[in-house]
Structures are given as structure tokens and as C-alpha cells.
């Protein structure tokens, strides 16, 4: 009987979730502009936080316990940066998604590239966040690569290209 009860409860939860998703989908048609929610991400600061050379320098300069404490703080900040970058990528995906159907081929092409990069950035971010947490627990563990930062830079350039092509009067 327990299995049946568990399955009934689980399916009721899934049903509620589905109804919520459907409601969100319906309401999102009239939602506000995603571009307004984009947060600023300082790529230079982020690169510095996950730079192995910077970590080595700190390791040599600071006592071990002090280094571990500071490195944890730095990596925690890096996680926040990655989260913001991933959130921005999600918002840019929405912009690119609508722009890809533009009648202007150049805009549509720029949107396709942006879409591709935004998805890749989110993939890297999902891969990078757990690695940053591992690096927080084991400070000697190798730091994740710069792929998120690189992809974010590419994405930034593409959104500008896309923005320039938008018919906004007096932009840029």
C-alpha cells in the first residue's frame, strides 16, 4: 500500500508542477523586457579570482590557514560571478530567441550566434560551480578553466552586435 500512496502523492505533486509551468508559460507572454534584468559582471575581477597564478602568489605570501580562508572567500565570490553570468545568459537567450526570427538576416545571424554562446555558457557554468565548491573544500585542487569567462566575453560582443542592429532610435 505504501508504494501506491507514494506514487499517488508524487503524481499529485507533478500535476501541480505541470499546472504551474503552464500558468507561467501563459503569463510570460505579457512579461517585461528581459534586458532590464541583466546584471553587470566584472570579467576582469572574475578572471583574477580563478587565476591559478594569483592563487600561487597568495599561497606563497600568506600563512597556510590565512591562505585557505582567503581562497575560500575568493572562490565563493567566483561562484557568485558564475551564477550572475549564467543568469545573464538565460536572459540573453530570451532576447536572442526573439531576435532570431528577425526579417533582417544579419540580426537573425547574430542572434543565432548569441543563442549558441549563451547555451554553452550555461553548460560550462553548471559544470564549473561544483568544481569551484570542490576547490573551496580542497584548496590544492586545480582551479576550473577560464571557459566561462571566455564564453561570457564572446556573448557580450554578440549582444552588442545584436543591440546595434536593433531599430532603437539614437542607440549607441
Amino acid at each position, binding site marked *: 500500500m505504501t508504494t501506491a500512496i507514494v*506514487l499517488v502523492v508524487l503524481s499529485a505533486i507533478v*500535476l501541480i508542477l505541470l499546472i504551474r509551468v503552464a500558468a507561467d508559460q501563459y503569463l510570460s507572454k505579457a512579461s517585461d523586457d528581459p534586458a532590464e534584468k541583466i546584471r553587470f559582471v566584472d570579467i576582469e575581477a572574475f578572471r583574477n579570482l580563478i587565476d591559478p597564478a594569483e592563487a600561487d602568489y597568495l599561497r606563497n605570501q600568506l600563512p597556510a590557514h590565512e591562505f585557505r580562508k582567503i581562497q575560500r572567500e575568493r572562490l565563493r565570490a567566483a561562484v557568485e560571478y558564475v551564477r550572475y553570468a549564467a543568469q545573464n545568459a538565460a536572459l540573453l537567450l530570451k532576447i536572442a530567441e526573439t531576435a532570431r526570427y528577425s526579417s533582417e538576416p544579419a540580426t537573425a545571424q547574430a542572434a543565432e550566434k548569441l543563442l549558441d554562446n549563451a547555451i554553452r555558457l550555461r*553548460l560550462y557554468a553548471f559544470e564549473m560551480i561544483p568544481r569551484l565548491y570542490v576547490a573551496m573544500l580542497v584548496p590544492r585542487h586545480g582551479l576550473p578553466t577560464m571557459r566561462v569567462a571566455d564564453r561570457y566575453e564572446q556573448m557580450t560582443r554578440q549582444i552588442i552586435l545584436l543591440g546595434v542592429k536593433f531599430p532603437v532610435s539614437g542607440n549607441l
Partner: protein
Amino acid sequence: MPFLELLWRTLWFLGVGLHGLLTLVAIKRGFQRVYPVFACYISWVTIVGVALLYMDYAPSVKGNEYFVAYIVALVTGSAARFAIVYEIFKHILNRYPALSRSGTLLFRLVTVALLGLVIVLAKLSPPAGSDPLMSTVSLLETTVDIVLVGLLLFLFAFSGLFSLSWRSHAFGIALGLGIFGTVSLSTSAIRAQLQPTAPNQMTNITNVINEGAYVICALIWLGYLLATERPRQTPTPPKHDLGTWNQELQRFLHR
């Protein structure tokens, strides 16, 4: 005839009629070119629905003949529902080539994990009821529903995680299938546990719920099918945001 039996029989007729209407609308709108598996499924469900209705009322049809037809409908319908989920997933991935490889791999992994889960659940579930054939059918229905609901959940979670947009038709199909799957999972789990040997109040209640879900599912699909997919509008990012992005560009260019 008790009220509940009358109700589920009415809903059964209504569901078959709605699926017939759905098939006509889908064919008229050329839906079979975009979603061929879904179009085949609704056509098949209509044909099978009419056949089962006839067999249920025809005095010449024996109980075991109806049972065979029911099993054929169950197996083919379940296989088609899985194929529809895959069809929707492929539609989403086709629009996002960057996710094609990882998405397909994840889909396969989730399918294997769900199959593993249902095998374990089937092993752990104590045998209920006196009829081994009915026990097997109930177990089959439950396991199929678990995998189907699991895959649909994965589909929604995956697209939510990557903020992928759905074409409204694909969303409608998945939503209808999800609602039908969750309701069917509940009722099949109850039936698998209680194993009634003859129709009673409980079987009538589960039949009403099941047929009700069948009708709701058809109405959702009909609604999404009749709604035209609206052309997307080109957004106009606010001026100040473009300025910020431009500053970033200049910073990169002069580095």
C-alpha cells in the same frame, strides 16, 4: 446502471469523440508534417477507442477477446507516448544545436535511470491480487506511467534549466501528455495495489478519473492545436543597457 458507471461511460464516449475531432483538425492543419508521431498517435487512439467501445457493447465479443484488444491498445499506446516525448525533445534540440549532443546523452541517461528505477520498484512491490495476468497488466501500466512522467519531468526541467523556449504546440502536447500520465499513474498505482476481481465502486471512481483525464488531455490538445503560433516580436533592448554593453565592448577592444 450506477451513476459513476454512467459517468465514466459518457466520458469514454466523449473522449473518443474528441480524439476523432482532434485527428480531423490535426490533419486539416497539416500537423502530420511537423509532428508525425503525435498525429499517428491521436489517429490510432481514435481507431482503438472506437474498436474498444464496439467490443464493449457488442454481445458477440467475449471477455477474453476484449482483454486482448485492451492489451494491444495499452502496449501500442504506451510505445507511441514514449515516441511522442522523444519527438518533442528532438524538436526542442533541433532549435538549439549547441545542446544537441549533451541533450541527447542526458535523455538516454535519464531513460536508462528510469528503467532501472521501475525494475527495482517492480521487484520490490509485493504481489497483490489473485489473478497473475491482471497483476502483470497493472504493474505494466504503473511502470510505463512512471517512465513517461519521469521523462516529461526531465523535458520540462531540462528546458527550464537552459531557459529554452517552447513552440506552443510542443508545449501543449507535452502538457496534455503530462496531465494524462500523472492521473493515469495514480489510478494504475491504486489498481495495482487493490486488484479488484469485479467492477465495484473503486473501479468506477478510477475509471471516472481516468476518462476525465482522457477528455481534459484531448481538450488541451485541441485548444493548442486551434491556437495559431504567434509570430515573435523583435525586442528593443532599452537604450541604457546597450550603453552598458558598449562600454564593455570598448573595454575589451582597448585592452
